[in-house]
């Protein structure tokens, strides 16, 4: 049989269901790839032993009527896993072992999957290149010393390098879609409230949302089906009926209206990105969709709004790391206040500290109205822009990122240039709506570029259908020479 680890999740599930491959063989194949990797650094915790014993149990009594029968899955190290270290890429949680399981991972295990490992990410999901992780940089399998994007950088890298058949990430401002775009993979940020946040290490609670990262759109539909669902433990979880995204997937998108927002044509954007965007429009037209020019006038204010709202929420969420009940504690303190200050100073990395300080500043007495309240007003305006557009169109097509993957270290010293990576992805989080990034072509270096489709709240099915139609026409293929095995 040809290399099983290169196949789509959908194909692997089919082979398991037809009993053409055993879960143990499948799991061993991925473990072999993980062990052969010497450079990517995409794993923080390797759970090979657990995975193999779960696979053996599965093969003894295969339960085939599930969505993910006998499938090993490595997940972003932001999801709490019972009895398995969960670090959030931080020294603060280096030795934290949750005594509970996040709802999302639990949903995957209930569908027959099991844990293969915990994947590297930017510290507390704050970063766009995976360079803020306490556990070191992750490399993008497309080229040595190139970033995989972030914050779900380990997830994207492991997926693209065939170290896991599928994975999950979280997306607060682009942390699923930007790394998907950088690695030539598919990533979906669902509607806020569709996937439970319970048991996910919190960054900015009104923006955080978990989602699937996969090799194909069909895989993405399957994973979303497994992940989504009402959870009474998350007060912002939406109570709605489960949908069969994979079964209802169709490439028939005739008559759908797709909006092209003129504000996404930003200064300095490369010709290559413009080309894939134009090509995306053409392919949608060929599929029978109608292209409509639209305007999202407040787009340029999304990033400044995000850098008030997200740090504000982070400063509040991360106040819990005080060295008392769990996590790192500094040893060189004489009194309680010093213990707090030293614990947080030594336990958090520079980017996390910077964001906590910004968040504390914008919420502090005398500044709240000028920054936080102002940002919440602009956030409403950004949401209104989308609401207005969705009266005219079914979905919106944009590039996923303003550039392809860059070199490690290239943008590390300038926070603003790093933040600009998320210029096309952030508005979606502010509005709480779903969006998917699919690979759409390459640049001069042969680095992948993604296209983003943005949909109405809870309209994931339509979004997946459009992505499916475009994916079929683009027929993106990536062949990597496994340099990381040397």
């Amino acid at each position, binding site marked *: 049989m040809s290399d099983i680890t290169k196949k789509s999740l959908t194909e692997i599930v089919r082979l398991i269901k037809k009993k053409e491959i055993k879960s143990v063989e499948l799991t061993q194949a991925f473990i072999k790839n993980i062990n052969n990797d010497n450079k990517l650094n995409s794993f923080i915790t390797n759970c090979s032993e657990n995975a193999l014993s779960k696979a053996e149990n599965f093969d003894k009594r295969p339960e085939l009527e599930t969505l993910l029968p006998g499938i090993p899955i490595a997940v972003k190290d932001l999801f709490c896993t019972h009895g398995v270290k969960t670090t959030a890429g931080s020294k603060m949680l280096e030795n934290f072992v949750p*005594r509970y399981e996040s709802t999302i991972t639990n949903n995957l295990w209930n569908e027959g999957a099991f844990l293969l490992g915990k994947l590297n990410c930017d510290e507390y999901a704050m970063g766009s290149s995976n360079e803020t992780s306490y556990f070191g940089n992750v490399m993008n399998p497309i080229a040595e010393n190139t970033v995989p994007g972030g914050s779900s950088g380990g997830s994207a890298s492991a997926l693209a390098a065939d170290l896991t058949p599928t994975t999950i990430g979280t997306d607060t401002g682009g942390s699923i879609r930007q790394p998907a775009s950088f690695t030539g993979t598919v990533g979906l940020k669902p509607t806020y409230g569709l996937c439970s946040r319970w048991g996910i290490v919190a960054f900015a609670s009104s923006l955080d949302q978990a989602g699937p990262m996969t090799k194909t759109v069909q895989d993405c539909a399957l994973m979303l089906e497994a992940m989504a669902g009402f959870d009474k433990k998350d007060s912002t979880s939406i109570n709605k009926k489960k949908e069969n995204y994979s079964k209802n997937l169709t490439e028939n998108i005739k008559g759908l209206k797709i909006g092209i927002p003129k504000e996404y044509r930003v200064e300095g954007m490369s010709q290559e990105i413009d080309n894939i965007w134009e090509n995306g429009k053409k392919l949608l037209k060929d599929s029978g969709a109608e292209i409509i020019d639209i305007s999202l006038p407040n787009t340029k204010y999304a990033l*400044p709004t995000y850098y008030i709202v997200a740090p504000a929420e982070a400063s509040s969420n991360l106040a819990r790391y005080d060295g008392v009940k769990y996590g790192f504690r500094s040893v060189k303190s004489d009194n309680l206040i010093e213990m707090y200050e030293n614990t947080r100073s030594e336990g958090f990395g520079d980017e996390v500290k910077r964001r906590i300080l910004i968040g504390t500043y914008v919420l502090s007495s005398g500044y709240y109205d000028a920054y936080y309240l102002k940002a919440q*007003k602009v956030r409403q305006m950004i949401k209104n822009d989308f609401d207005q557009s969705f009266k005219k169109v079914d979905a919106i097509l944009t590039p996923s990122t303003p550039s392809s993957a860059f070199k490690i270290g290239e943008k590390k010293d300038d926070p603003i240039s790093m933040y600009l990576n998320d210029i096309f992805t952030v508005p979606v989080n502010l509005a709480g709506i779903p969006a998917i990034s699919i690979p759409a072509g390459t640049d001069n270096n042969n680095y992948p570029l993604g296209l983003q489709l943005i949909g109405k709240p809870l309209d994931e099915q339509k979004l997946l259908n459009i992505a499916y139609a475009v994916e079929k026409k683009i027929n993106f293929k990536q062949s990597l020479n496994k340099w990381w095995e040397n």
Partner: protein
Amino acid sequence: MSIDKDKIKHVSKLARISVDEKKIDGLTKDISSIIKFIEQLNELNTDKVEPLSSILNEPLRLRKDEINDGKIREKILENSPQKNEDFFVVPKVIE
């Protein structure tokens, strides 16, 4: 509004993060540039806009105030940096 070293020291006190004297100039520079960036919002007139309070279209649910777990003292203590029998230990608070 500009931000200076004293302001950074004040905010770090509020956030309970001690800042190394050697790093404070760089931090002030970075945070100033970010503050300048977010102040682009001042170009916008928002007088007639209501601030967004929730992005969900439905109101938050209330739940019954019921006990649904408990007897997990040991589990909780397992992750504590320092404990003594059933207590979390912290540096002395009262002299």
